[in-house]
């Protein structure tokens, strides 16, 4: 086992030596630091005059910005890891050594993961800085950073996997970007479209209120008649929403509830939204009101009732990454029986 890991280590070091030593990597690092830092400083300066406490909003913006930037940079580092080596003729010379296909692909995934984490590293000071401005939510930073690390790993794995499965480096990089775009934007569109597609007609009981003039109370009762209505069914497509990396992040950060029991920041609100989407549409009924006619919040206990959507979403991502890596290992295994059209193996 330790020999196996040692060999993996050699592959990782080889990957890093190639990637980290490239000028492009350093240039990108500086660009990322300038963009993230610049946006945050401008945001902070221009929002300072606002009356409301905007620390939380700036913190949320920072986290999302870091996610956006890293997800945009990572495919560039991983999307041509295998087919680029094929083109350069260096893949075959590693294949004829004692390295297994699994070590080779995993080494490339981990290598480009580490190289991409450099971008998180230059963003980390801004994340911590804006967390302090946002009221020192240390636990939010402690959750956010591992999630970004994991997400970068997922994009690296998808990029390396696709670079093993697709012949042309340019194409595999573009497809990796498309995968990132699908999860970042496509899932939102898919959720919206899916909600409309799955909406259904429902017959609901009508309720009405009887007002008691004597004690000023009102009681709820069913009229006995029904009405037709169209209800959307987000619960049938909520997995789409759950697979969105920004939703994962929002749901993973523990919600801070205000006096009324509602989350007070943007993460918590998004998280609450995706939890609500899991529940089938509620028909308003008299059961929502207690004996005094006071409204019982149906959202109470929703965090306990519903699945942790960040976990589900990360699960989807990790499964996808695993499938991509598995496919690439098959494609790198030699001696090869089948070859993609037009490919050369040395």
């Amino acid at each position, binding site marked *: 086992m330790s020999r196996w890991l040692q060999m993996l280590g050699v*592959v990782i070091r080889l990957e890093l030596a190639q990637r980290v030593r490239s000028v492009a990597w350093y240039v990108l690092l500086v660009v990322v630091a300038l963009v993230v830092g610049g946006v945050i400083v401008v945001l902070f300066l221009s929002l300072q005059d606002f009356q409301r406490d905007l620390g939380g909003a700036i913190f949320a913006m920072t986290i999302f910005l870091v996610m956006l930037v890293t997800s945009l940079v990572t495919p560039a580092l991983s999307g041509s890891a295998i087919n680029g080596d094929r083109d350069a003729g260096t893949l075959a010379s590693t294949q*004829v050594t004692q390295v297994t296909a699994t070590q080779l692909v995993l080494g490339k995934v981990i290598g480009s993961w580490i190289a991409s984490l450099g971008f998180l590293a230059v963003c980390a000071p801004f994340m911590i800085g804006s967390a302090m401005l946002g009221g020192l939510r240390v636990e939010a930073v402690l959750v956010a950073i591992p999630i970004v690390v994991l997400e970068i790993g997922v994009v690296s794995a998808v990029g390396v996997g696709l670079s093993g499965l697709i012949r042309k480096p340019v194409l595999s990089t573009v497809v990796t970007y498309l995968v990132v775009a699908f999860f970042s934007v496509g899932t939102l569109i898919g959720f919206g479209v899916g909600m409309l597609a799955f909406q259904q007609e429902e017959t609901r009981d009508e309720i009405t209120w009887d007002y008691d003039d004597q004690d000023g109370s009102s009681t709820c009762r069913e009229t006995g008649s029904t009405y037709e209505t169209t209800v959307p069914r987000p619960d049938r497509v909520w997995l789409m929403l759950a697979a969105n990396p920004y939703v994962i992040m929002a749901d993973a950060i523990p919600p801070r509830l205000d006096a009324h029991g509602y989350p007070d920041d943007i993460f918590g609100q998004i998280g609450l939204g995706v939890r609500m989407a899991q529940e089938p549409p509620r028909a308003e009924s008299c059961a929502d009101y207690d004996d005094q006619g006071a409204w019982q919040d149906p959202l109470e206990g929703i965090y306990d009732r519903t699945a942790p959507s960040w976990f589900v979403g990360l699960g989807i991502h990790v499964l996808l990454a695993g499938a991509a890596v598995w496919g690439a290992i098959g494609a790198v295994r030699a001696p090869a029986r089948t070859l993609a059209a037009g490919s050369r193996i040395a």
Partner: protein
Amino acid sequence: MTAQPEPAPDPQQARGAGADGAPQPIPASPPRFVDPLETAGPVPALDDGGIVALHVHRSFGSVHAVREMTFHAKPGRVTALIGPNGAGKTTLLLMLASLLAPDAGSIRIDGADPTRDPRAVRRAMGWMPDVLGTWRSLTPLQILTTVGRLHGLSRPAARERAEELIVDARLEELAKRPSRVLSRGQQQRLGLVRALVHRPRVLLLDEPAAGLDPTSRVELRGMLRRFAAEGGTVLISSHDLSELDEMADDAVFVDRGEVVGGERLVLAQQAAREWRIRSLDPRALSYQLANIGVAFDRVRLEGEVAYVALDRDEHAAEVLRRLVGGGVPIIHFAPAVGDIERTYLGLAGGAR
């Protein structure tokens, strides 16, 4: 200087010259009868050692890159792999290097089967591909150390081996510079020692001499001869036929995905070969060539050098004897092409 208006050769004598270029009255030997059954050569056994390929076939879609290849590259010998572009040499080498699985047939590299046990093959085999990829941002020293580590050497052992090979490749001055600054020939030398990092017993070389300067070629030749003398097996593919003639003990000719063997090979080896003749007195040479009865269409004069196409080595000896007997001061009498080149050109049907 073309054909001189010499004293015309006696037409009677010229006509009397044998069609094979041999001067009369040397009795022209009848065409050799080639029995295809006898010349087919023994079919190698899989456990013969070295490189054994038996009925290997590989196609890509409808393209049959390798149709039927059977040969044996023996330990202790340098075997040349020769064939025109597209003959299937590279496909064959990829299969031998355990990168590509054959559709049918079996391969043994030092006794190991690349399909069943590729790791044993990779332990035994060093491979130098035709398109040599190097990690451009790494130094030669790092490249060789990394390859050693990938072959399972410990860090100090890999480092030590790398330093040793850097000296062998004469890259000491460039050992610590990125490999992208290396010239083509230096890259070839690096690629060659890279194939040797794990001390293989079988070497597969695809165009190893391309881009090498003369010194490096001589060194390469010496290196391969030493490798074979120590019991190693070398299979070398190249288009430089005169180079191969000097280096190789055996030759495997491939054409259109098949190993050329038996009758076709014998016939090709019998094709006329040109002999290069130089004399201190070119006029006497061209005069005597006609005079001793060499058919004029077998003689080609280029400057002061005469080329004579002869079918048999015995005829060459006879021609030389007669020229010397005729008082021509010969200073050079040698085959213009080597054995491998002659066979190759004979196969290609382009023998001049």
